[in-house]
């Protein structure tokens, strides 16, 4: 038999029922589409996280007071602990050889007022070294210096979002604002940083000297974080264990007792993210598998319907010399064509949607060729797997009965 010739003659018939055909392919289309979208979302978020970490500084360790657990990929402080103090930062610097900076910080959400406008934002009390550790840059004015911190001066550096909320287009530098009830002078504006890896707005904050924050605003003696910068990325491990040793000693924690702080390595945050995205991927794979299965059954159904409608055609073909295997190949080719068609539609649709998502989520669109190839291959397997039964049925039809079928 001339296969291509046969397929050309028979496929003209399939096109008659376009709507039904497309409907029955929706399972495969949705399955493949989901795979395309999810894989590219996974890649997009990872690319974004990596770029966030680079912004934060890849050689930075974050010490949090108390235990921090990673829940659903996000770091959460379990309960507030009062043992972390500003002088711990000094001890870390003094007792280590792999650490450039250790910057203490405490934060709290408070209301901020300018004129009759107000907003609630995150107030971060910290020291001037935070500039170097967290790669902050200024778009206007200046940052406070060590003397202003020592003198508990009421000066504030605003994030871009805060400026927009209470100053609008006005230049805030030199103006007075109230944080809680305390008046502060705005001395600078931070350059925008965008969202952090958890999706929080990093520009919705005000940075003030730590001493000012603790004494005049928060009325606290303890802090909740120390940002530690290792000398370089290769000394991260040593920096982490030095930090740990110093803090345990400073907090008089006996061996065997758990830390009352948590040291987070940015790389391990990335690992945690990857871990949670792996779970996500697994879930998506399951969804994809189910919809592919449904898609396969859809193909089987349409093939069975199509064969029922074409019993006479099968009889005619057999009468003029088609072998059982010719009929089998014909219908197998049809189900293959259907599933490949569905797969291609799914791939195109999925990539289109993924590109749109990438534009809106502001991450680079990426999709490995492997995923496309595997998806395509699985549609081929679907077509064969779910086409065999109907095709077999068609091939086994009785010639005379098929010819007389009305």
């Amino acid at each position: 038999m001339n296969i291509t010739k046969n397929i050309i003659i028979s496929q003209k018939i399939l096109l008659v029922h376009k709507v039904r055909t497309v409907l029955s392919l929706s399972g495969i289309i949705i399955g493949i589409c989901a795979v395309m979208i999810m894989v590219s979302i996974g890649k997009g978020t990872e690319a974004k996280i990596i770029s966030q970490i680079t912004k934060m500084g890849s050689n930075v360790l974050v010490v949090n007071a108390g235990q921090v657990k990673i829940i659903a990929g996000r770091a959460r402080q379990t309960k507030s602990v009062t043992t972390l103090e500003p002088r711990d930062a000094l001890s870390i610097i003094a007792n280590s050889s792999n650490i450039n900076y250790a910057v203490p910080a405490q934060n709290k959400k408070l209301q901020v007022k300018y004129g009759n406008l107000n907003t609630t934002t995150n107030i971060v009390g910290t020291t001037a070294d935070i500039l170097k550790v967290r790669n902050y840059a200024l778009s206007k004015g200046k940052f406070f210096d060590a003397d202003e911190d020592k003198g508990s001066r009421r000066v504030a550096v605003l994030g871009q979002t805060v400026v927009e909320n209470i100053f609008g287009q006005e230049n805030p530098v030199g103006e007075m604002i109230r944080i809680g009830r305390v008046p502060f002078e705005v001395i600078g504006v931070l350059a925008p940083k965008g969202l952090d890896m958890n999706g929080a707005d990093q520009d919705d904050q005000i940075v003030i000297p730590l001493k000012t924050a603790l004494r005049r605003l928060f009325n606290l003696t303890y802090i909740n974080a120390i940002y530690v910068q290792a000398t370089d990325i290769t000394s991260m491990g040593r920096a982490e264990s030095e930090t740990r040793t110093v803090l345990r000693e400073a907090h008089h924690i006996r061996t065997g007792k758990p830390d009352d702080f948590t040291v987070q390595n940015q790389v391990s945050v990335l690992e945690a993210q990857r871990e949670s995205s792996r779970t996500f991927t697994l879930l998506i794979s399951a969804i994809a598998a189910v919809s592919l299965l449904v898609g396969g059954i859809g193909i089987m159904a349409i093939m069975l319907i199509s064969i029922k409608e074409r019993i006479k055609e099968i009889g005619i073909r057999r009468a003029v010399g088609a072998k059982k295997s010719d009929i089998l190949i014909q219908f197998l080719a049809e189900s293959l064509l259907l599933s490949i068609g569905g797969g291609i539609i799914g791939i195109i649709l999925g990539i289109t949607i993924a590109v749109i998502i990438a534009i809106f989520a502001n991450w680079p669109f990426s999709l490995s060729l492997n995923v496309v190839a595997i998806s395509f291959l699985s549609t081929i397997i679907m077509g064969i797997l779910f086409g065999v039964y109907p095709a077999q049925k068609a091939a086994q039809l009785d010639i005379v009965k098929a010819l007389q079928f009305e």
Partner: protein
Amino acid sequence: MIELKNITKSFQNGTIKTDVLKDVTFGVQRGEFVAIMGSSGNGKTTLMNILGCMLKMSGGSYALDGVDIETLDDDQLSDLRNKKIGFVFQSFNLLDGTSALDNVLLPLVYAEEYPDDARERATQLLESVGLGDRIHYKPGELSGGQHQRVAIARALVNDPAIILADEPTGNLDSESVREIMDILKRLHKQGKTIILITHDINIARYAGRTVFLRDGKIYNEEVSK
């Protein structure tokens, strides 16, 4: 060329057994034009399906070109139908939504080799049955007589030795009947073996010999001039 001996055929439907062919014995020479006559329900179509290797007989023997049909498997029977037999059915049996040309080409699709001049051959055959100007028409766009002429062209495309026609004029008006019968007569003159099934004595007259089927048996043969 065709040798039937003591053919029997019965259908089993649940507990009911119908003996359709009880003892059919007859032969057909190469180049003969034979009519098989009998009233409705007599087993003419059943006999043709057996002759066309589409239906297994219950008993007896059938040799075609000296080959015992019983010894062939399903694939070999398909090949044999493709090469040696051209079918013309009462209900035409053309593929819907497929052009006259593609319908005629269909047997070639299943031939051992798809010939390079397939289209020319099919077009020529359609011209010879008077449809040269309608090769791209689909069955829905053709009349009954034209359907049957496409079917005849299809039966001829593989140049088979035998044409099996089961009441080819049963669904046609008298004008078309004449056209179709003239074509069959011409084919006979060109050397084809033709077996024509009919219940119409006027149609049977076209044949050189008429075989009567009654009660599942051949009971009379009549040679016309």
